[in-house]
């Protein structure tokens, strides 16, 4: 399939790759085609789209239906979400990944866009792959760990400190540490087992703020992590990804996320998700992820965010104002 090569080819203009994938998915991804038909879009519209105009399929489609091209019913990988939804009901999304090679390519090309992977030892403070084979995040960390030729990278034991000999081995190899973990796991680790990491190391927080037992802003979280691991705050970074996406965005020292070149963000109007918001205006985070070639590349998340050029900020979950009832109070401003 020639598209698998071209989606990661930065020498091809993004718009061209975008149009190819849109065209392909309009033909091959039945649920997306149905969705577009229901919205009144026809095949003739397909070339005119951009990341800010393309209709975005809600990510809940991965929970409510099969999202994929023909053949993806028998995938190489099958990822499932942890089950948290905006309505509080425990229903999991399923992402059937037809080609593990595409996901692998996206992971490595993506992280290498922002980090020189060979400079790092990868540590994962998450459940191991065997305990959670359906997590796309854990699969990603496992791939990163396995790619380390020094053999030092590994999943850490939960609720235990980072072994000193591991830190020493990383230092001895001349590498820094790239520590992955969910927000709540990292903060527990920071509280129980603070330790100084080698200079230049990076803490990679992968989200999960909403499941933590305490209220904490991302900024406070990063401050606490930096203090506990003996690093400047600028070394606490974040990854933005989800089961439904095969690409990740990274924030590398501030609150702004940046995407690899095959991924784009469009902030959409919650009152009309077909409309893009202007830079600086809050709305729903929409993603074009060309690596989702065999599922759907044009997705609307339930996250609230703002955009500034090619960067975006995640502002938490989007909860619509309830306009029912007597909620219109001081209306004279």
């Amino acid at each position: 399939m020639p598209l698998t090569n071209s989606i990661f080819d930065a020498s091809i203009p993004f718009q061209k790759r975008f149009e190819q994938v849109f065209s392909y998915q309009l033909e091959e991804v039945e649920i997306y085609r149905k969705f577009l038909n229901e919205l009144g879009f026809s095949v003739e519209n397909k070339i005119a789209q951009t990341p800010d105009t393309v209709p975005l399929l809600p990510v809940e489609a991965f929970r409510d239906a099969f999202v994929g091209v023909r053949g993806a019913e028998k995938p190489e990988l099958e990822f499932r979400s942890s089950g948290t939804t905006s309505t509080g009901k425990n229903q999991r999304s399923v992402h059937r990944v037809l080609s593990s090679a595409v996901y692998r390519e996206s992971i490595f090309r993506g992280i290498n866009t922002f980090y020189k992977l060979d400079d790092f030892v990868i540590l994962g403070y998450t459940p191991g792959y065997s305990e959670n084979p359906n997590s796309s995040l854990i699969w990603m960390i496992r791939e990163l760990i396995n790619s380390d030729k020094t053999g030092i990278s590994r999943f850490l034991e939960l609720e235990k400190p980072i072994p000193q000999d591991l830190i020493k081995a990383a230092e001895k190899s001349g590498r820094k540490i790239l520590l992955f973990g969910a927000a709540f796991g990292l903060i527990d680790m920071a509280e129980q087992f603070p330790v100084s990491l080698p200079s230049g190391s990076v803490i990679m927080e992968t989200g999960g703020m909403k499941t933590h037992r305490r209220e904490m802003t991302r900024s406070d979280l990063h401050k606490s992590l930096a203090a506990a691991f003996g690093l400047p705050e600028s070394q606490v970074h974040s990854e933005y990804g989800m089961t439904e996406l095969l690409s990740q965005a990274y924030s590398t020292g501030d609150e702004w996320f940046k995407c690899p070149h095959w991924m784009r963000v469009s902030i959409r109007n919650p009152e009309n998700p077909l409309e893009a918001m202007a830079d600086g205006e809050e709305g729903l985070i929409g993603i074009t992820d060309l690596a989702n070639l065999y599922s759907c590349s044009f997705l609307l998340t339930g996250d609230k965010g703002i955009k500034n050029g090619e960067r975006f900020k995640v502002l938490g979950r989007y909860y619509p104002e309830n306009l029912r009832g007597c909620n219109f109070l001081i209306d004279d401003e």
Partner: protein
Amino acid sequence: MSEITKTYQNPRERAALLAEAVQEWLDGSESGLNRAIQKTADEGLFPEHDIRFALDHIRRSVTPESLTGWVNESFKKPVEPELVLVLHAGNLPLVGFQDILGVLLSGHYYRGKLSRKDPYLAASFLKTAGKFFPNEMIQYSTSLDFFNGLKAHKVMFTGSEKTYPVVRERLAGAGMMTEGADLLIRTAHKSVAVFENPETIDWQCLTEAILRYEGRGCRSVIEVFSTISLEEAIPDLEFHINNFLESNPASTGFPAALKFEMAYFSAVGISHLSAGRQLITSKVRQNQDGLIIWNRVDNPRVSALHQKGIHGLQSVYSTNPADEFESLSEAQTPPVNWKPDGADTLSWLTSPGTK
């Protein structure tokens, strides 16, 4: 603000006067009500059919007997008149009319901040009421600044948890209420209906409960619990919705956000049915204004009782007279003494302060 100098008659006398005032106002010939209706409809604030519906309901429910009954049931004890600031919402025509009645029945002094979304209807009544009650008992404005320095002893308002601190700060900052003012805050924004037996579903009542006022009231049904699925319900629902919309057409087009949801539901195969400016669905992707959820459950009563514990619920309705729930037929036509957020307004107004 004028000083409070006297009480005015006893509550039963006030009930009789109030009923007379309401009657004269509804009569319309001199009260300016017809003009108010016309302006409200012409300016697109509310559709005329909803205004007429609200007025018809007031005509039927606000009578000398109903007001006296409310006094007998809820009037605690004669009160020293105090200033009561009522902040009216603007989601329905004449929303908060019961608050006006309650304050005037209580003997307190009504200070009403009317909504700019509904500036004419209540004002036309208050003008008429001013002929029956002393001038100092009634003052109103659509501008909140009008009440700067009021120092109200009691404040009634409806809003959300989110708006409450903002409102409180604004009122306190401008001296609109005393430091220890009693506050009656309503936050309910939804009601649900429960049907244990499909035979007992009153489709017409249910349609009215969902569609009236385009679902904007806290008494509007936004969730149904039934032993039958939405798919099974659609033929009856559709018939009654079409009937309703024929005489009560939607004020504006179908919201874009719901069009988007509808496309999604169609694509993934989730049952749904458009209903005026709302959308009934069997499954929710993301909570959205205008979405009505139809739940097929094995035990609707248990689900409904569970709902009772959820914040923001106004009423649970059923069509079974033996139930402890409210009657579905009264969803949009509650008795004069109904209890917003479970609180009896007159009782609150005539009870010792809770601070």
